[in-house]
């Protein structure tokens, strides 16, 4: 193998990129825009007022104001309206169905025994509603607790601490590190797939095979060339995700912040390395799959096949060990699973290169990359006949 020829191929890729501003924009600007959007959506979500319709025992003036006080103490924005002491469960359902309330609560007036609380919600947004249910249960428990009596002296207070990060870490802090890997994977796959397809269709691959360059040299040159771009991309994204630059208000422009200021205890260089090894697999997957495409559109059509399942099963949103059995097996075969695990270990838990988990993830990712180098090289034939 000749290093000079590998470098020649890598250099040719870099030279091609230099004149392609659109792709450069795609590689550097788009991931930042998408990550920023994600940060915006997750960070600055409106805390919507929860509208509660109450009926029965809870509908009297005293109970209502007690509920509102406790809600205010817990930082929940509650708007309570009474349907009356004698309202029935039907009235409560009607209020929710008509959109006049997000939650309806009926506590039938009864004598003796614990109250049986009936709660009605829309059922159109299970995730939000189950969160709401938890908060409501807490509120109702406290509202019903006779203060200064029983086992507890007054209502309990909570202090929450976490082993990693801090308790006020939000979804973005957990998602942003793995998005580094996911974006790198996506763009590198897309770019190499298209680039290699052009090489096959445009006849340059055939022409290359009339020179002493070997298939492995071509594939390694591609890995190096696109690896370089993955490197730059991951660096830019890492900086964006971790940094926080406050820009003060200037004239009519209000103050704003550049960067997501995501909490991280980890070593960004190691995180970057995990993302890079993942990208090398993506380069060779792109080369490999370009055999099965005839047009650039067909490369795009591989996205639902390659990129989406990795996003769903790789553990970005739902932990792999909570997936159904069969899907767990699938997930364990996806490089994204190991990259997500490695990135979280490093960025959230502060694991170093000495960590067995990180070493394991890196080893699997490297193994997958090598496998795809071999597969990719195998698809470069002297002849398509």
């Amino acid at each position, binding site marked *: 193998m000749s290093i000079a020829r590998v*470098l020649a191929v890598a250099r040719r890729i870099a030279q091609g990129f230099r004149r*392609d501003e659109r792709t450069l924009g795609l590689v550097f600007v788009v991931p930042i825009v998408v990550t920023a959007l994600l940060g915006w959506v997750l960070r600055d979500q409106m805390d919507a007022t929860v509208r509660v319709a109450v009926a029965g025992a809870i509908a009297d003036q005293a109970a209502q104001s007690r509920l509102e006080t406790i809600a205010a103490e817990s930082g929940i924005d509650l708007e309570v309206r009474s349907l009356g002491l004698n309202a029935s469960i039907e009235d409560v359902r009607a209020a929710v169905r008509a959109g006049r309330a997000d939650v309806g609560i009926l506590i039938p007036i009864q004598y003796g025994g614990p109250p049986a609380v009936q709660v009605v919600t829309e059922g159109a947004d299970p995730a939000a509603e189950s969160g709401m249910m938890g908060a409501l249960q807490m509120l109702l428990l406290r509202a019903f607790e006779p203060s200064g009596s029983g086992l507890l002296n007054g209502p309990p207070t909570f202090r929450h601490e976490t082993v990693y990060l801090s308790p006020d870490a939000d979804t973005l802090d957990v998602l942003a590190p793995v998005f580094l890997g996911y974006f790198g994977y996506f763009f590198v796959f897309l770019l190499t797939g298209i680039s290699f397809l052009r090489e096959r269709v445009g*006849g340059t691959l*055939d022409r290359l095979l*009339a020179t*002493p360059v*070997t298939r492995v040299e071509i594939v390694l040159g591609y890995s190096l060339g696109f690896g370089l771009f993955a490197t730059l991309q991951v660096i830019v994204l890492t900086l964006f995700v971790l940094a926080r630059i406050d820009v003060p208000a200037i004239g009519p422009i209000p103050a704003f912040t550049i960067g997501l200021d995501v909490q991280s205890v980890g070593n960004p260089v190691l995180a970057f390395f995990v993302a890079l090894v993942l990208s090398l697999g993506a380069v060779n997957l792109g080369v490999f799959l370009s055999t099965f495409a005839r047009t650039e559109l067909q490369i795009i059509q591989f996205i639902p096949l390659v990129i989406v399942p990795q996003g769903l099963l790789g553990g970005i949103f739902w932990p792999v060990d909570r997936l159904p059995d069969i899907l767990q097996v699938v997930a364990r075969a996806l490089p994204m699973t190991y990259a997500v695990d490695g990135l979280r270990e490093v960025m959230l838990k502060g694991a170093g290169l000495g960590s067995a988990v990180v070493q394991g993830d890196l080893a699997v990712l490297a193994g997958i990359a090598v496998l795809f180098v071999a597969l990719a090289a195998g698809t470069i034939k002297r002849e398509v*006949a």
Partner: protein
Amino acid sequence: MSASAAAIEAEGLHKTFGSIHAVDGIDLALQPNRVYGLLGPNGSGKTTLIRLIAGLARATAGEARILGTRMPSRPMLRRIGYMPQAEALYPELSVRENVAFFARLEGAVSNDAIDRVLELVELGDRRGTPAMHLSGGMRRRLSLACTLVHEPPILFLDEPTVGVDPALRVQFWAHFRRLAAAGTTILVASHVMDEADRCDELLFVRSGKVIARGTPTELRQGAGTTDLEAAFLHYAGLDAEGRPLVASEP
């Protein structure tokens, strides 16, 4: 003609694509210092023959040898230059970057060699232009430059002068003759009769077979004409207006 002295040899070369016999039993022994012309109608198998000899496609039967080595052979690839019929360039790379890229793949090639070959194809003043901004003939010239840059002793040129203007075409042929005089073996596929006339020897291919070979003069005599174009029509089995001659199986 001893077989060992031949630079390019083929024995019983066959290539089929499905039911098509693109190359149908060709034997060759081509000597150094000579320019060989490959003539024949569209689809007669010229490109396929070149690709088989250069080791870019695998023969269905038979074998090809270059400098005594059986093809395909990677070490031999360094000693051959192949100019494909459709140019294979990187459109977003500049003229010079394209040549330099192929030069690097062929092994260490000096900047001087790159500049020389760019002067030869008269693209010296366009070295910075991206290949996609070149005219059709200029792209052809660039493709030739990429083929010649490592100064290979064996050259396969598949219609090298299509779209190249007459002045430059004359210069190209002068250069091919110089290369041949210096020991290069050249096999050129062409449809230009005036170019065929500059070859030392012609091979006329039809339906995958070499049906006539000899110097241009010999081919003209064999066809009983004084005009190479008329000879082409004769060997292709056509009359003077390009219509098939009935019952003229050569």
